[in-house]
């Protein structure tokens, strides 16, 4: 575009190797470095790690985490938090299973009704979170912590803690273990969710408004952005995505479970932050969130193959999350220096 030449352009000095490395780090973040380390480490620990079958299996197992992370990502972008994402998963799992098992018609109609009920329940949960944050001005941390307790309690109340069985076989065959072109349907759904979310956030006005509200709510408000509507959209989208993830998990488990998803808030926040999504809001890309979730899946899968105790996986996730937050801080500081031409 030649228009730029008509405006005075201020040049920046070129730097040394350290300067170049800093620029690269600002651009790509810490995740690619972590992924390379993980791939090398686990491929050395297990011969099966870098096989097509294992990668496919790991992605299929983690597709629900990828989708839930996308939900968490939207809320983080809007400057919020969703600690209820695990409880939404449990409530949706139970609702979907109960709706399916109560149907007497064809398996297809039972599956469709179950999925619709599940997604609507997820969206309703998101709406409740959004109303608390946007309308009642409750801190998102507190609001979603409170609703997590409510949703979890509802799931347990509906089932008395007993798994809901009697789901159509087709549900599990299609969504749990089905494939299209040799790739699991759940992986395709995760990919579809990522693409749809990318379109929403990158190519539409509401998406840009989500970024602006996360970056500076006051600036967005004064620019004529409807902050209330934007926050509601973010939380409802998160609820819908958590619901899709819950439906996939229910299909894999073949039962509706009230006790699932307890670790999802940590996993999804960790995945997003490791991917380079800012906890301060307003910064991050869909690809960052997806890669963060994939990284967490790689670590879990690699440690399983290396027969490392699952408790250690939690420790590793926590340590990596802390490192990612430190890296995010460093990246923010370096970005300012790079843009100012000091690096």
């Amino acid at each position, binding site marked *: *575009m030649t228009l*730029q030449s008509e405006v005075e352009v201020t040049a920046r000095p070129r730097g040394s190797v350290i300067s170049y490395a800093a620029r690269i780090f600002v651009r790509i973040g810490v995740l690619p470095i972590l992924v390379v380390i993980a791939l090398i480490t686990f491929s050395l620990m297990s011969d099966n790690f870098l096989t097509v079958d294992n990668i496919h299996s790991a992605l299929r197992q983690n597709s629900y985490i990828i989708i839930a992370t996308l939900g968490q990502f939207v809320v983080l972008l809007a400057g919020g938090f969703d600690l209820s994402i695990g409880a939404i998963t449990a409530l949706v799992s139970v609702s979907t299973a109960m709706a399916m098992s109560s149907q007497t018609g064809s398996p297809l109609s039972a599956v469709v009704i179950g999925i619709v009920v599940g997604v609507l329940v997820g969206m309703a949960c998101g709406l409740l979170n959004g109303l608390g944050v946007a309308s009642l001005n409750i801190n998102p941390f507190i609001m979603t912590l409170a609703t997590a307790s409510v949703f979890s309690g509802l799931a347990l109340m509906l089932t008395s803690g007993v798994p809901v069985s009697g789901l159509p076989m087709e549900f599990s065959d299609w969504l749990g273990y089905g494939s299209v072109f040799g790739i699991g349907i759940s992986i395709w759904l995760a990919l579809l969710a990522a693409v749809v979310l990318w379109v929403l956030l990158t190519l539409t006005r509401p998406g*840009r*408004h989500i970024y602006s509200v996360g970056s500076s709510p006051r600036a967005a408000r004064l620019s004529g952005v409807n902050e209330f509507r934007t926050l509601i959209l973010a939380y409802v989208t998160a609820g819908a995505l958590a619901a899709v993830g819950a439906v996939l998990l229910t299909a894999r488990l073949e039962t509706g479970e009230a006790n699932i998803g307890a670790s999802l808030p940590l996993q999804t926040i960790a995945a997003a932050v490791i991917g380079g999504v800012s906890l301060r809001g307003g910064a991050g890309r869909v690809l960052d969130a997806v890669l963060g979730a994939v990284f967490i899946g790689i670590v879990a899968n690699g440690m399983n193959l290396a027969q490392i105790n699952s408790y250690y996986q939690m420790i590793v996730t926590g340590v990596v999350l802390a490192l990612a937050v430190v890296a995010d801080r460093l990246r923010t500081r370096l970005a300012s220096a790079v*843009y100012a031409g000091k690096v």
Partner: protein
Amino acid sequence: MSSNQQSDNVLSLRGISKTFGAVAALTDIDLDVAAGQVVAIVGDNGAGKSTLVKILSGVHPPDSGKIVFDSKTVEIPTPAAAHRLGIATVFQDLALCENLNVIQNLFLGQELRPLRLNDVAMETRSWDLLRQLSAKIPSVRVPVASLSGGQRQTVAIARSLLGDPKVIILDEPTAALGVAQTAEVLNLVERLRERGLGVIMISHNMADVKAVADTVAVLRLGRNNGVFDVNDVSPEDIIAAITGATDNAVSQRQARRKEGLSS
């Protein structure tokens, strides 16, 4: 300083009052702004300048009084309503989203096409606006966080021009800027005047006021305390109106100087 001032006002306030609880922030404020005129509003802290800006920008509604814009009595319930009318505000903190780039900030809340954003048209329009203001911006695709204070002020002013407004309100546009950046911003104010816009400039800096304003309106304790033609008034007179005292340190120093010169 050329002032292509028109006799008909683009914006008039009559009897504007605003209270917050027991505190009367503004009482019976009158103000006129003509096209192609820069009106500086000055006053001490707590004089009501910020409240007046917030009323005109749609952040707070007035409790009473009348706002006449383009010969029509109007209400400004929201910032979006102010935009639609043709009143643009550049706030003291600029109200920019630091993580967003220049284009995204310029078009925030008024993006071209809601469902398939027209980024090419927005970029073209961004460069066009910045060129009109002779802006020194490295790229419209860098985050605003990477720009200097003067560059950010330029982006905020450019954004205010997007909807082709008739009145622009600048709240302390040179606060916290260096000498070169201040000169840059004052040049922008001159350009706004040349474009025939009515400009309201809130300022504490008498040098800035003298440099670009045509008229100075003084607020004191939420009330009008004089409207002066900038060519016919001294900084001492303005300070006297701001403080409400004709006998103050500035006027005393001025009197001593005059005595020294006459003797």
